[in-house]
């Protein structure tokens, strides 16, 4: 063994410059050390009042709009959609109310609720979503920003009251909307709300506010907003309606509302939509998030996941 090591070292000495070896070894060691650094998921969160009311609704009139990357003309009936994503505070209120009246169950560290199921067609890769109780949110995940305030009431973690609700599954998003008699937007409704009418100014816009994106328009990966620290916890959510043209301390935002006055239709969190497609159990999300590059913030970009998926980068809003 000793002889082998000696020979190997000789071989290395003859073929590789020693300093090069050391440099590579040092780099690998540094990589290992930095990658093992712990992340403080409860690092202090700056608090700002955006002045945007999360309980406000926007009117979307019936009519045509340009849908998708290739600007196909599509039509929707009239509807109302939330101006912002559902906040942590709003979702906590829902949990309290729905817990009291028995609309949801809290068991084994998670919230579950009933879903009647989808038609199963056994298409390749399709998974059966039968009738039953499904996960809304997990209580045992440290990324959840909801805390128990009493045995039967819930509240938002301090500093997160006006942040979008995350760590919520599609069932949890649908359950929230349906509890109040609302629903999740279809993809078409979501897209129209983000893009504006076919007759409006710049109706083929790629972003809710126009043609180009800058760091002051939205919360996306490495957008240098006041909530992120790319050396430790990375990107975090921003309060709903944050990008409204206000200046927060030294940080100036651009007013990035959609033509119908909706905020955060690009970035911050992906938003669940309500469509259930034939032969597919995946549910679709829109808008991009704090964790994606600008390209995913374009209005037509779609993402999807199983309906039980939850993440610190996924939220929702409702329509009625």
């Amino acid at each position, binding site marked *: 063994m000793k002889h*082998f090591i000696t020979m190997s070292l000789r071989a290395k000495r003859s073929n590789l410059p020693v300093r090069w070896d050391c440099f590579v070894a040092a780099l690998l060691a540094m*990589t290992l050390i930095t990658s093992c650094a712990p*992340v403080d998921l409860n690092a202090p969160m700056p608090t700002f009042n955006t002045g945007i009311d999360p309980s406000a609704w926007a009117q979307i009139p019936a009519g045509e709009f340009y849908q998708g990357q290739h600007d196909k003309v599509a039509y929707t009936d009239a509807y109302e959609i939330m101006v912002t994503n559902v906040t942590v505070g709003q979702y906590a209120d829902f949990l309290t109310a729905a817990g009291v009246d028995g609309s949801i169950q809290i068991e084994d560290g998670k919230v579950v609720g009933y879903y009647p199921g989808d038609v199963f067609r056994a298409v390749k890769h399709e*998974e059966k979503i039968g009738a039953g109780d499904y996960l809304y949110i997990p209580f045992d995940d440290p990324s959840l920003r909801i805390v128990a305030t009493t045995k039967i009431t819930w509240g938002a973690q301090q500093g997160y009251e006006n942040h979008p609700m995350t760590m919520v599954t599609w069932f949890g998003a649908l359950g929230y909307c349906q509890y109040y008699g609302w629903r999740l937007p279809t993809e078409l409704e979501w897209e129209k709300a983000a893009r504006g009418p076919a007759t409006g100014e710049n109706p083929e816009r790629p972003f809710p506010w126009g043609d180009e994106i800058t760091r002051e328009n939205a919360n996306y990966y490495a957008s240098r907003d006041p909530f992120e620290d790319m050396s430790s916890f*990375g990107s975090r959510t921003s309060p709903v309606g944050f990008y409204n043209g206000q200046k927060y301390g030294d940080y100036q935002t651009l007013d990035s509302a959609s033509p119908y006055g909706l905020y955060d239709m690009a970035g911050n969190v992906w938003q669940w939509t309500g469509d259930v497609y034939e*032969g597919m159990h995946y549910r679709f999300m829109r808008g991009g998030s704090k964790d994606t590059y600008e390209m995913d913030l374009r209005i037509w970009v779609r993402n999807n996941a199983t309906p039980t998926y939850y993440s610190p980068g996924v939220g929702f809003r409702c329509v009625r």
Partner: protein
Amino acid sequence: MEAISKRFNYLFNSTKGLILVAIAMVALVTAIWGMLSGPMAEMGVREVVVKALGMDLVQAEREGRIIILYHSIAMAIVAIETYMITGLLKMKQFFKTAINSIITVGYLMTMIFGMGFAYFGHNWAFHGLYIAGLSLIFFAGVLLVIALWPWNPEYYVTDKQYARTKKGVSLERVAFFATALTTVISALFGAVPGSFFGNGFEVFLAENIIRYPEKTTMEYSVIGHLHIMLALIAIMITLIIGRWLNFRGILHKWAMPLMILGTIVLNLGVWGVVTPLEPIAHMIIYVGATPSMLAALLLLIWSWNKLIKDGTAHLRKPNFGQKLSALVRDPLKFGPTWQMLFMNFTTSGIGIFMAIRLDEIFRVWPAREERIELTGHWHVLSAIIATIILMYYGDMLGLKGKVRQLYGWGIIVLSDIAFAAVTVFEMKRLFISEAEQQPLVNALMYAIDFGLGMLLVLLAVVMVWRLIDLFKPKGRWTEEVDHELAQEVMK
């Protein structure tokens, strides 16, 4: 004037000159366009590059731009492989000249006018010239297939060390022929949907439609095309490396039939995705991929065995350390097959693991996570092919001594650091949550950027050296102008 004429003759009329030009073009495009995404974009470098070069990046056209970018780089790589084939294999001089001329004009037109159209405003004349360039490459491919016709008695082999039929038909040439032929046919699987979607400019990236249960024939054709073209480029470089190293003996006799069988079955499987065979196409692809990969493994075993034997010939009973030393003594001969082995950890292994656990693991994650795995693993495969080409090119240059060691090990170590980091990045969700991933992501990004960045610096040094050399009246280029690759095949 004569000086310019001589250099032009070297760059565009000699195999090594043509390869140099193509590598320089790929390096240039990679260096500039590499600054438009990833960490470079995060650091704000993209904005500077876009402004400085006057690029016109319309958001809705991103996918179309990327497709033209991929094709521009891929066509240069196809040209490099073609130069290597015409330089290594026997063929009529007319074919050699015609193929090299046509493909050179083709890839340069594709690259210059394609990128001009995609990134610098829509000059429609450029678009036409881009399509004309692609057509020329296709035509050069057809000529190559004709030139490689293996049943011409002129190309029969008599040496029993090489795989051949009883009549003497070279099975290695059949493998080259089959790969070239299927490449030309598979190009059509991109050309047809390209015209279909391009006519309305409704382009898409295949990785964005993977989860849709219903796909059109044209969409399947695009998915099949991109997979098979990259696989065929990989198979061709394996054959080229085998020829350069003078692969022979019993393993050659086993490997070549496997390579021919694998290539044909693999292609049939991929073509099958646009036919009623679609439901079983993946199974056919697996059946085809297995013999191809086995053939590459046989090349690896043979070449490593040869390196060890040649390196320890002076020793009566070499021990393990001495054998290992002999194996890694020349990084440019060890490197290509090592990269093929490494590919199994970064590409094939990942692909197989994904296929086996697709529904249980990968399709529980969001589609964007699955996209990272898909794009990551084929970017790595492409880059591995590039490193293999660079190592062969290093040998063509006649690098010796410490420079050879530095160049060879630089490519191997730097690229493998980057590729390993990409692989961990792709698979990170298996062992770390989204909320806690940032330090790991940062570390992996440093490793990727360091590896690829330094690799590009290394390549830039070589390119600058070759540029300076061109200004010398008796530079290295004067020696290379008449050298042919077939003369430099290993003994």
